[in-house]
């Protein structure tokens, strides 16, 4: 046959590779060779499909069959049944959790139906290590168009009119940022890509770099052309080895084709890109700290102004954008700003990638138009809450954001609406919580993170966050007072107002938003010494219902501190002074006689 009749796309994102997807590729290739189908069916390792919950994922084209949780040993079955006999392997199909039906075509999965993939357009579709596949998808055409048809100011104008705003967190208009950098004159300017993704639970930048690295390279070159820079730097954390490797391959291929280097397309415009590795400090996602880290100094922020666009890397005008922002640029150039600005809400155009995590059925990466509601994301795309539990809250914006509740579910999500609701877009992490999550503990968890990650330069962040964390610790242990709650609130506002950089200015947000939305939980912890969600261990009290207790002694034997006493076949009792609230008795009791309050 002159052409492959079938393509088997295997997810090669970090998540699926951790579940041996590279072995799946090997086994599929071996099986196909053995059956003499090596030149009929092609096996391709792609980037992330987004449906990480059920990885590793294998997609069969052209029939769009979507296999989930595939193991290397399933390769033989896929080849024998699907490839040779045309029968999809039922066992490996996705089962809709509600209808219990096997769904073979990914187009019919609730997870994909509402998505619109712009930044993720090539993830899970092309082989990220093959520049030709990117070019086949109009890759580098946008760069060609800019260099041959548009002046730098026309490019900036296009980006401005598209309404694209920075996807890294604050949502600053990208075109305006480029404009400022272009107007500052200097012998050398820099284009920097911020790939220091640090929010807990967010992995969109990693997935874009792993699945479609060329889209970022192309956009950086476009940016270089429009602001007058010839040098690009990608600041990426060293803990993303696969993304780094794919970037290296991509940069090497782009250089070989002359798409990076001197006089691109013979136009006289030169641009090249290098990598800079970060050690994984959260604060280095802040652009001034990032620049200092790249310069070889401590990753600490400095006051703005001067903004990087005036004085950035090595004191030169520098444009810093996030990975997802860059990934959207080539499409805007190719399809026009009119197309892009027709998607989304009035002030937030285009799409946004969200990383769904926490107590949600479909953990994964999704991209939806701005203006999609939380309800659509959590209940339709995300498939609802795990184990049929009740939705309680969702934290957007990572440790800098806030939690949103039931009453916010129908707000169209965009930069401004999220801020108005007391949270923020951030980089797009969404951590979903259910009825078993204690909101005071959630706030404590995020504060623990910011205390760890504070660079220590300014006092409000270094000392204030530590104090807030201590107060929260106090409250979850049952030692809090009403005065502590006041102190908590006051200190949060002071830190917000006085911290040096974005990290400190937003770090109290989880506290303030949980206090606003779940004030009664704070009160219960303080006045009743009770955790309504039943998750704060120190506030739990175990007792035995004497009517239900049959005296089997299982609890007493399981108790690590011998706090339970009682005669065999007689009722047992827990000595509260000795009890350490470990819950062993609760698990041991087969008669439901151990009670928690």
């Amino acid at each position, binding site marked *: *046959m*002159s*052409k*492959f*009749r*079938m*393509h088997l*796309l295997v997810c090669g994102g970090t998540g699926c590779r951790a579940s041996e997807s590279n072995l799946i590729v090997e086994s599929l290739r071996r099986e196909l060779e053995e059956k003499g189908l090596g030149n*009929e069916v092609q096996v391709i390792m792609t980037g992330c499909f987004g449906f990480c919950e059920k990885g590793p994922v294998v997609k069969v*084209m*052209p*029939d*769009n069959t979507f296999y989930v949780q595939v193991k290397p040993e399933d390769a033989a079955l896929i080849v024998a049944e699907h490839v*040779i*006999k*045309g*029968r999809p392997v039922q066992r490996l199909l996705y089962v809709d959790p509600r209808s219990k039906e096997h769904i073979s075509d990914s187009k019919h999965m609730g997870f994909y139906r509402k998505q619109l993939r712009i930044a993720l357009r090539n993830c899970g*579709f*092309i082989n990220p290590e093959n520049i*030709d*596949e990117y*070019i*086949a*998808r*109009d*890759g*580098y*055409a946008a760069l*060609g168009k800019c260099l*041959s048809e548009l002046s730098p100011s026309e490019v900036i104008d296009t980006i401005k009119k598209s309404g694209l705003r920075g996807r890294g967190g604050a949502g600053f208009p990208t075109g305006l940022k480029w404009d400022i950098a272009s107007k500052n004159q200097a012998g050398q300017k820099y284009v920097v890509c911020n790939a220091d993704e640090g929010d807990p639970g967010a992995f969109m930048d990693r997935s874009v770099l792993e699945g479609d690295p060329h889209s970022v390279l192309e956009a950086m070159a476009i940016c270089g052309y429009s602001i007058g820079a010839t040098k690009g730097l990608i600041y990426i954390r060293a803990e993303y080895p696969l993304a780094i490797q794919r970037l290296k391959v991509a940069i090497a*291929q782009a250089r*070989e*084709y*002359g*798409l990076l280097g001197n006089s691109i*397309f*013979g136009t006289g415009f030169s641009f090249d890109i290098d990598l800079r590795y970060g050690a994984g400090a959260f604060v280095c996602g802040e652009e001034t700290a990032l620049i200092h880290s790249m310069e070889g100094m401590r990753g600490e922020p400095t006051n703005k102004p001067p903004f990087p666009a005036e004085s950035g890397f090595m004191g030169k005008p520098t444009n810093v954008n996030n990975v997802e922002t860059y990934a959207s640029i080539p499409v805007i150039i190719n399809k026009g700003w009119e197309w892009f600005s027709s998607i989304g809400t009035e002030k937030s155009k285009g799409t946004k990638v969200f990383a769904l995590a926490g107590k949600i059925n479909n953990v994964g990466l999704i991209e939806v138009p701005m203006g999609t509601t939380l309800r659509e994301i959590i209940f339709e795309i995300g498939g609802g809450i795990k184990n049929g539990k009740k939705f309680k809250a969702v934290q957007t914006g990572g440790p800098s954001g806030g939690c949103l509740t039931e009453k916010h579910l129908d707000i169209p999500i965009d930069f401004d609406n999220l801020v108005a609701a007391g949270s923020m877009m951030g980089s797009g992490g969404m951590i979903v919580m259910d009825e078993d999550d204690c909101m005071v503990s959630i706030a404590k968890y995020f504060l623990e993170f910011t205390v760890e990650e504070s660079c220590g330069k300014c006092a409000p962040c270094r000392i204030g966050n530590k104090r807030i964390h201590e107060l929260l610790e106090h409250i979850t242990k049952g030692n809090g007072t009403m005065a502590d709650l006041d102190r908590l609130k006051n200190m949060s506002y002071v830190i917000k107002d006085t911290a040096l950089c974005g990290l400190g200015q937003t770090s109290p947000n989880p506290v303030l938003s949980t206090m606003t939305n779940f004030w009664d939980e704070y009160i219960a912890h303080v006045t009743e010494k009770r955790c309504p969600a039943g998750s704060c261990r120190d506030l739990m009290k175990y007792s035995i219902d004497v009517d239900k207790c049959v005296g089997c002694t299982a609890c007493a034997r399981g108790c690590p501190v011998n706090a339970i006493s009682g005669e065999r076949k007689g009722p047992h009792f827990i000595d509260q002074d000795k009890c350490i609230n470990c819950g062993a008795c609760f698990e041991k009791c087969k008669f439901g006689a151990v009670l928690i309050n």
Partner: protein
Amino acid sequence: MEKLKSLADLKKIREDARVKLDLRVKGDNPEGLVQVKVAMATCGIASGAKPIMDFFVDELDKRGIGAVVTQTGCMGYCYAEPTVEVQLPGQEPVVYGFVDRKRADEIIEKYIKNGELVEGIIPVNYEKID
């Protein structure tokens, strides 16, 4: 790899690369394309469905027809294998039986190109639940 010196060079690479990606692009947007399904169960394969499928894959491509060729399991017409289901855009699928190279060629030339029905149609007398 040679360096690209102009947009024309990029275009050439794009066109060559598109051919290789074509199958995925079509599979992603099958609406508006001709869909050919070859029954490839044991009965189909034994009756020579494999070369027929290869024929469709190669010839549709050579003749420049935008089509998606896939396989299905046994359609139940074991007496008439190889069987091929053809669905033109926006139309009900039609199943052809006893498809050999000659009939496959006819299906492409007459039915797929012009919508003319060809001999060998198996009347569909069942209902599908979706």
